[in-house]
């Protein structure tokens, strides 16, 4: 299990959004998530990868299998050195966007996942961490 319990994927072009989805789909499926949860996780990853490509141009996605209280889960971390988010609370509001998007990326990803943490510093970059737990 160790060989496939974590991984890293660099994001640097638009086609990496689809490629990142494949990486996440494989990881989530291998962990035993059902089709609906796999779709939720992959869609959240698609939004967060697009955010990196759109706002920071490049970054990295890391995934790893996690466990807590005998529950298994998947953790995805999206890290970039882009412009950062001046007001994270505002960015979490549905419909708020500084680009031409729908403003669903961050709040949508949060609804699709079980846990989400956003750390951002203007001028330094943004790290978004999301987790989904396997239902027992």
């Amino acid at each position, binding site marked *: 299990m160790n060989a496939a319990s974590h991984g890293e994927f660099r994001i640097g072009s638009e086609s990496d959004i689809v490629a990142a989805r494949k990486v996440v789909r494989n990881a989530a499926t291998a962990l035993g998530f059902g089709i609906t949860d796999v*779709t939720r996780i992959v869609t959240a990853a698609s939004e967060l990868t697009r955010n990196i490509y759109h706002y920071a141009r490049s970054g990295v996605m890391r995934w790893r299998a996690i466990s807590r209280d005998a529950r298994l889960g998947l953790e995805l971390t999206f890290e970039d050195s882009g412009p950062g988010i001046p007001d994270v609370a505002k960015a979490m509001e549905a419909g708020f966007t500084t680009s031409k998007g729908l403003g669903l990326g961050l709040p949508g990803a949060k609804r699709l996942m079980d846990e989400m943490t956003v750390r951002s510093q203007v001028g330094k970059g943004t790290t978004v961490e999301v987790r989904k737990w396997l239902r027992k």
Partner: protein
Amino acid sequence: MATENISVIKLRNLLLVTVPPDPDDQTVSALQEQVLQAMAQHECRGLVLDISTVETLDSFFARTIAETVQMVGLMGGRTVLAGMRASVAVTATQLGLTMGKALTALDVDRALDLLDSAPSGDGV
């Protein structure tokens, strides 16, 4: 980078478009362009978007579809989204996606029935 193949078929006075399973942004944008061109060229009254193989419907994809529905509407046509998977429907709803004025159907067969009975155009 090559975009994935998009199949646009004219069927009587309708367009049947099969969306590839995992399209990138470029393919999604190309799809919109091809659809609008074909609508104009063939003077179609309706569009069926077969999304039965689509596994991931994210906000960019949804926005482009909603836009396309609106554009096709302005051109006098109706759009039916056919065959959305259950897992995709659950995810799209939680994500907060809306598909504009698109009609929906369980599969392509029912989509064709729906367009046969729907009044043409958007009243524009």
